[in-house]
């Protein structure tokens, strides 16, 4: 029989999953669908270009994608706001328990879902079980024609074929900012750095920051009443809040 203390443990676990450390707010009303975030993400994270053949087959690799939908029947078709979709960094992620090799794990320090490329054997179970379908698989070793190899980001691993990958919330930037703050003996200041997609967005539709800091812009925004979280009903505790029709 469940006792009161058992219930408390459940509550604690839920709040831990709900809480998180880093979060994002995406305002779909001001997103223009320009794909600057997609390009910036690919530059920052060494995401390969798959070529036209594989791209035509639907294998283009992006950690963030702009989804476009429409409402109504022709000719009364109305476009709905663009929806940037990326890893929601779930507090209770469905991708994590299904990996047999512990390649998809939850980080204690950053409260993010990590993908350990070196440990991945490519069962692709995580991608099947991700309700947001935001994981990309390296179907081949993709070539980077000159001069593209010159713009590799040295802070990010280059992945080989047979490995799953996904958005990391630019964890290399998080670490850099934390290291700098630590050497200067202070905490990371809100707005000191941001993720590549948020940095590139010309409309400022993406806000990134600490959601465990009640003063930060992102936690202020995510408390707004018209914010929604995608597929929240699955109990995944996503850490990205969307604004639509505000």
């Amino acid at each position, binding site marked *: 029989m469940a006792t009161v203390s058992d219930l408390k443990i459940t509550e604690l676990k839920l709040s831990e999953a709900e809480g998180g450390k880093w979060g994002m707010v995406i305002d779909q009303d001001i997103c223009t669908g320009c794909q600057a975030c997609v390009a910036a993400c690919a530059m920052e994270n060494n995401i390969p270009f798959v070529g036209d053949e594989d791209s035509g087959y*639907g294998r283009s690799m992006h950690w963030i994608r702009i989804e476009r939908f429409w409402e109504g029947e022709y000719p009364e078709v109305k476009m709905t706001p663009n929806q940037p979709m990326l890893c929601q960094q779930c507090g209770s992620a469905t991708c994590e328990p299904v990996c047999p090799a512990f390649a998809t794990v939850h980080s204690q320090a950053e409260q993010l879902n990590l993908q350990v490329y070196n440990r991945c054997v490519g*069962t692709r179970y995580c991608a*099947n079980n991700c309700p*947001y*379908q935001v994981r990309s698989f390296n179907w081949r070793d993709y070539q980077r024609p000159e001069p593209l190899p010159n713009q590799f980001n040295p802070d990010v691993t280059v992945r080989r*074929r047979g*490995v799953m990958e996904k958005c990391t919330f630019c964890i290399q930037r998080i670490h850099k900012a934390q290291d700098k703050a630590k050497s200067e003996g202070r905490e990371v200041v809100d707005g000191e750095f941001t993720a590549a997609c948020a940095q590139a967005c010309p409309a400022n539709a993406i806000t990134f920051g600490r959601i465990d800091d009640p003063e930060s812009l992102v936690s202020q925004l995510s408390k707004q009443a018209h914010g929604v979280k995608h597929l929240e009903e699955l109990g995944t505790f996503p850490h990205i809040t969307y604004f639509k029709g505000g």
Partner: protein
Amino acid sequence: MTYDKKEKKVVHAEHHAHGDDHFREKHLMLDPLPRGQMNDMVMESMTEPPTWKFWLVFGILSVIVAYGLFYSWARLIIEGVGIAGVNRPSYWGIFLVNTVFWIGISHAGTFISAILRVFRAEFRRPFTRAAELMTTFGLVQAGFSIFMHLGRVWLFYWLLPYPNERMLWPNMHSPLSWDLIAITTYLLSSTMYLFLPLIPDLAMARDKSTGWRKIFYRTLALGFRGTEGEWAHLRNAMNIFAWAIIPVMFSVHTIVSWDFAAATRPGWNSTIFGPYFIVGALHSGMGAVIVVLAIIRATMKNMKYFIRPEHFDAIGKLMLVISMGWAYFFFNDYMVQWYGGDKWTKQLLHFHEGGPLGWMWFAMLICNIAIPWAVLWNPKWRSIPWLVSMVGIFINVGMWLERYIIIPISLTINRMPFTWRMYTPGIEIPLGIGTLAFFCLLYMAASKLIPLIPVWEVQEGQMAHKLTKYGRETVVTVSELE
């Protein structure tokens, strides 16, 4: 009532007219031959020089295996899984369909052998080994299929719990880890279970052969001489394995079903998948057994004596019952999912029936329910080997389609409509045909190397069965041997 009685009398009169021949002709257990002669028949079927037809089929299958399995797999490893058709959102394609299919096939071997042995169903005696061989060879193909689909198969050993300096272990939360353990257990135990009843026959073959065969059988027979003590040990071991392998068999396909049922996908997240998959596996497995039996009977020497229409009739009955069981579970699963009314599940069910591959859904129901029910109810049709094996082939096609519907087709529909995309297979097709050819190839090689008929079991059964006359009535009696 009176009509029934009359009917019975007519049957009896017929028996008297033909004497006991009627029984002899029909039942292997009542048609004994001298031991030496029967042993020679089995040896002959195994050692007779292969005909040109055998070598032709063997050669064609070898080419298919070399190209379809080994060359294609090498390409898959060197170039990446990209040459297969799997794609977002159908990250699992025909590879997993074939894995589940082959594990299903492998189920019937143990089912026939273990359950029928435990329940002492006498008709099992001549074909237990043919069925058990399917288990082992089917599991080999299942293993191939699942390893093919790995992105980095050369690191497959990371899925095994082995001691390493970084203290990295497999994730026991993942159904795939359970799967690996269950399938390995099943492979090892079913191979042991295949080997144990084989020992007396290997000893028989050792005593009757010369040359390299003598060395081969002497090594495998482990010095079995047929003493009372050896038989007692063998019977004990077989009894333990027959009982123990039944729960293992149930666990394997339940765990395979959990790969899907434990995920959050619409159409997969179903509590009834465990028993549904077990019945489905038995369905395809029984179909495969009957096809194998029909082929053995038609192509190998002396097999018409051992495998008779009565066996097709008996397996046909089982097939009919299992087909009804499958229909029950299918309807149960479908009904509850449909009634649940979840937005995505509803979309998926519409896609199953009315989507571009809707024909598969209907073909599945025709092959798995309509055809078996239409043919197998009739004892006469049920006893015709080619007809029942045709039904077996249809059932296997239907069950393959069922897995295709559950895996790539159900994966097409998810909660993110932006990513919906049809799955078109690529190199999966030669690889899948390669596993089928490899299965047949292994079976053909085995038919020339080990006795496919458990002779000692047949002889034991024939000793236990007797025709006894009670007044004018001839009755079949079976004495307890153990």
